[in-house]
């Protein structure tokens, strides 16, 4: 059978289209794989390496965050000072790594505190129902009706401001943990309310399981995914909040570095300084990694 030139060219174009579709689907599946698996792994590796570098910041940067190189105030980027020095001659790399250590250690600690508080308050309200539930709901409404940054500023400013740097770190992150429970408590309360009348709890009650045993052995394990999601979402929120507070002068006090007070250098150094911008870039990278590591979001109606 003879095949005309036009048919041949059509066949060739169809084949090439199929090939391109196959390669596109391979590419898309590859990118999906990269986004779902490798990206999470990359984020974890990056955070782990950064955490290690921050943990041994003095060895890594070769200087303490508070050490002043009096002969090099405001030094530019060099081999000796990879991110330069600030106006007081302190090595920016050492300060950045120490600030990272504070954020990566204390933001999760504050998130644990806030999630524990939310579990206690939201769990109690959801499990007991009635008057305790109404009181807790009113409290949650009040906390959530105040803009987060306004609440933080108001409460932080009312706490002692002239404290030692270590105390200022503790106060800042304790405050974040103590005030950040409301949104999590609402989610946990809803989760407990849903579970309270579920079949497995009814069966457990029928089998004679009551009180703390019921809470710890039946309810708590089933709440674990909700609690973990709340914990992971709180970490980036607290890191950002600390940075905002530090920028407004209510966060960690000098000479201890934090991402917030490092970013305040932008106020004094009006020229583009890569050493200062590095802090913002690192913060973006860390928060981006946390976003990748967060449990995948479902649609709000699901």
């Amino acid at each position, binding site marked *: 059978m003879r095949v005309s030139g036009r048919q041949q060219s059509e066949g060739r174009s169809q084949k090439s289209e199929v090939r391109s579709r196959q390669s596109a689907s391979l590419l898309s599946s590859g990118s999906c794989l990269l986004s779902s698996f490798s990206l999470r792994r990359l984020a974890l590796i990056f955070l782990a390496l950064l955490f290690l570098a921050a943990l041994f910041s003095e060895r890594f940067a070769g200087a303490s965050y508070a050490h002043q190189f009096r002969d090099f105030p405001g030094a530019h980027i060099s081999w000796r000072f990879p991110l330069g020095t600030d106006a007081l001659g302190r090595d920016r790399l050492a300060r950045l790594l120490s600030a990272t250590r504070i954020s990566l250690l204390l933001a999760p600690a504050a998130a644990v505190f806030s999630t524990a508080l939310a579990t206690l308050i939201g769990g109690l309200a959801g499990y007991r129902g009635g008057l305790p539930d109404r009181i807790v709901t009113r409290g949650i409404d009040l906390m959530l009706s105040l803009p987060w940054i306004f609440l933080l500023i108001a409460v932080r400013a009312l706490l002692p401001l002239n404290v030692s740097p270590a105390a200022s770190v503790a106060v800042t992150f304790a405050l974040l943990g103590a005030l950040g429970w409301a949104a999590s408590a609402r989610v946990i309360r809803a989760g407990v309310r849903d579970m309270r009348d579920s079949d497995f709890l009814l069966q457990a009650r029928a089998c004679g399981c009551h009180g703390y045993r019921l809470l710890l052995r039946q309810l708590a394990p089933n709440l674990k995914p909700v609690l973990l999601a709340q914990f992971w979402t709180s970490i980036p929120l607290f890191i950002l909040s600390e940075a905002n507070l530090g920028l407004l002068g209510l966060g960690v006090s000098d000479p201890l570095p934090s991402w917030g007070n490092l970013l305040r250098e932008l106020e004094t150094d009006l020229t583009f300084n890569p050493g200062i911008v590095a802090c913002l870039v690192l*913060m973006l990278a860390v928060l*981006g990694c946390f976003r990748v590591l967060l449990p995948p979001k479902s*649609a709000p109606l699901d």
Partner: protein
Amino acid sequence: MRTVKHFAQLALSLAATALLGGFLTAVLVRVSPGFGVDEHALDPARDAAALRAIQAARPEQGDFLAYSVRHTAAMFRGDFGISRNWNRPVAGLLRERWPVTAQLMAAGLLGGWALALVFALPGLVYPARIWNALAGGLSGLLLCVPSAALALLLFVCAGPVRAVVALAVFPRVFEYLRNVLTHAAAQPHVMAARARGIGPARIILRHIVPVAAPQVLALAGVSVSMAFGAAVAVEVVCDFPGIGQLAWKAALARDLPLLVTLTMLVTMATQMANAVAGTLASRRSEAGA
């Protein structure tokens, strides 16, 4: 009758929450270190009578409960007290400053919502991967930048500082809006409409928006609080004379009358925005049902 009862309950709930917020703030200010220290009282040249007069001029230092009740009653008459820090009536300070914050918030809300809609809507009709990735990337990037840092960066670069509120509202609204709209777009009736060849604009306006409206309205209420939070950071960093800056200075100076009034007003405003959005959303869903 049902509507009247609903609004009465809403008003009562609003007032109760605002009063609770104001009272808790007052308690917090009262127990905070440094409260009640008057620099004039530290002057050794003043005699006992002058010190007693200074003490009498600060009624909040006496019986706290009685002061709170008096202050609340005066607030209902429109008298918000005198600011210790500014030595001026609180009402005057609020009157002077609210337009700055209102303008900042209005522009921010409009800009943020416009950006969110621009990035969320096309993805519903023409699911282009690049567009969605671009929108997701931009919103993710903006979510990771503290609003105060963004304000400072734009201020240093002589950029449009007023756009910070919009840039802070956009990612938070966009993420939720996209989820809600995508969920609405996946409903069977929308697919049926697409299969019948109905145009994209009509599908969005007639079939997707009505389904998503209750949640979008609820989000609109919440976004007022987001905008105020961003406005506080912008006003403090860029020295704009608005309510946010006033709150920051009142907190630093432990200015009880000003801080209590601001807390109550902010609580009332955000709760009212949420209540209005909630009422509209429930009306909408009732009409849909």
